[in-house]
């Protein structure tokens, strides 16, 4: 690192101007020597994300809690009270005598991963790539551009993880008497693995979408992507229950969300049938790799033109 030190002193100026001049001059003569490393820069970028998240905590929290709260309220409180019972909607549940909230916990968490992971990654990107291109600020940090992209995925994944974790307390407290979820964590390791890779998968998808989609069409993309992924993501029914509509059961296999909700079912509510673990983990880890690769590539092409 070649930092040259210049001789101090700014001659002829006087008065206020001289003071300003000498304090500007000191910026150069009296400067700390930077020693950037990849890890330090990455850490500082994450610290920046947490500072912003902390500052926006109230709005972040409200955004994260509204969906599970309303879902739990309607599906685990209002509908059981009304007495529709959901015997028909949750076929698998009715058959095994489970409450609908038991099916809903993994489903809700899955949809939170998607919402938070994609919002947490895509929306900031859209802003940063808009006409002022504030992304250039971070792009000038002394790390390869792909590190910046990976940092974006990490930040989005952390938001997704927190967003999904919020579902637990909400569903535990918001339900009609006797309608609480039956959660039975068979393996904390499995739960952690599913949650971590679900977070990275949605954040990677968010990075990719945020870099390939024209910002002006983002609204449309959310309608075309987010909605079908959620509605057909085995949120309200386990995948096995779809066997009665065989074509749909096969079609939804292209939906990454299915593997998140099914993975959570395997970890949280094993009493409900779920798809094989190897398929789940393959999809979550492989999906992260594929979307991560695509996202990092398009990100780099958008930043450096």
């Amino acid at each position: 690192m070649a930092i040259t030190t210049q001789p101090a002193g700014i001659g002829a100026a006087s008065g206020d101007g001289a003071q300003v001049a000498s304090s500007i001059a000191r910026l150069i003569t009296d400067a700390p020597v930077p020693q950037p490393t990849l890890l330090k820069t990455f850490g500082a970028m994450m610290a920046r994300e947490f500072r912003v998240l902390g500052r926006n905590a109230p709005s972040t929290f409200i955004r994260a809690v509204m969906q599970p709260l309303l879902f739990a309220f309607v599906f685990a409180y209002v509908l059981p009270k009304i007495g529709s019972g959901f015997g028909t909607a949750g076929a698998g549940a009715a058959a095994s005598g489970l409450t609908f909230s038991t099916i809903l916990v993994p489903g809700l968490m899955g949809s939170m991963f998607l919402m938070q992971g994609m919002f947490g990654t895509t929306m900031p990107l859209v802003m940063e790539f808009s006409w002022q291109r504030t992304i250039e600020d971070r792009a000038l940090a002394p790390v390869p551009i792909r590190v910046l992209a990976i940092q974006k995925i990490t930040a989005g994944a952390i938001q997704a993880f927190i967003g999904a974790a919020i579902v637990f307390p909400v569903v535990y407290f918001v339900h009609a008497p006797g309608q609480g979820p039956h959660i039975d964590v068979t393996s904390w390791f499995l739960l952690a693995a599913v949650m971590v890779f679900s977070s990275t998968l949605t954040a990677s998808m968010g990075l990719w979408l945020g870099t390939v989609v024209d910002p002006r069409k983002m609204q449309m993309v959310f309608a075309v992507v987010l909605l079908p992924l959620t509605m057909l993501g085995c949120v309200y029914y386990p995948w096995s229950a779809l066997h009665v509509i065989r074509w749909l059961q096969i079609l939804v296999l292209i939906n990454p969300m299915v593997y998140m909700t099914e993975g959570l079912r395997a970890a949280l509510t094993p009493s409900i049938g779920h798809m094989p673990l190897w398929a789940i983990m393959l999809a979550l880890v492989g999906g992260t790799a594929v979307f991560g690769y695509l996202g990092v590539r398009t990100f780099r092409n958008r930043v450096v033109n």
Partner: protein
Amino acid sequence: MTTATANTRNMTPPPEPPPTAAIRTENLRKTYKSSRGDVEAVRGIDLDIPQGEFFGLLGPNGAGKSTTIGMLTTLVHPTGGRAWVAGHDVTRKPVAVKRRIGVVTQNNTLDMQLTVAENLEFRSRFFGLSKAVAAKRAAQLIDAFGLGDRKNAMADQLSGGQARRLMIARALVHQPDVLFLDEPTAGLDPQTRVNLWDILQVLHAEGQTILLTTHYMEEAEALCDRIAVVDHGKILAEGSLDDLLADAGAETIVTVRYEEPVPDGLAELAELADRPGVTKVEADGDQLRVFSGDPEGLLGDLMNIGAANGLHVRDATQAKPSLETAFLALTGREYRE
């Protein structure tokens, strides 16, 4: 894709530049591919800027200045030629380059979700300063740039001049070897602009290497040791202000515009061109233009020539030697800002 092939095809890499050069480019090019045909934004630029120099790229909007800065700061991939900044190849060692440069982009790229102080602190930490040192550096910068009463304001609440000062402060956190300023005073009021000039002059006096782009002639005149006049992606002339004026034969330009088009081959014009001091006489549409080191009496003569040929004078101007007249002499075009 074409970039990669262009670079790998470079069979005999040119010798590394001398370590004293802060910026060096060889035939640097950028062509943007588009469905409506390729756009050659930069068409072969050669620069050799020693350390400590205040260098200006002067040209109208769209001349290729920002693209050139983009390539030198690693954010735009060159499609031809090579460039070194602080001794490092911009395409092969972008991270090494980024460590040694400070960049003030034309657009406001402040982190709007952070305060003024946080913008400086986090930028310092991006460059590896510890939290405590970063806070100290931020305080020092805030003080020097007169942002003390705004330090806790969010970055999006700053005025244009404050934002620009903060961007320059932010570019200096890690004591860059080269400071890039892309149109730093565009859109600022005259007072704020002069304040910024003062700051830049102090930095320069302390030995900071600066590359500035501007489309304001008076800015390049006021600040730069050397100036490259750029238009349509090429350097038209390069040197100190005096060199440029001398090379361009930029004497006083006397222009008279008539109500009628000037007829071809006026005998009087040849006579005028032979007069001592006169270097060039041009008839251009409805105008007659004379370049001369000794403008005495030329205006009257041009009017007389017009009158003798039945032309009616619409207006007349006499421009002193300046970058503006140099640009006109170089390009044959009026300078468009």
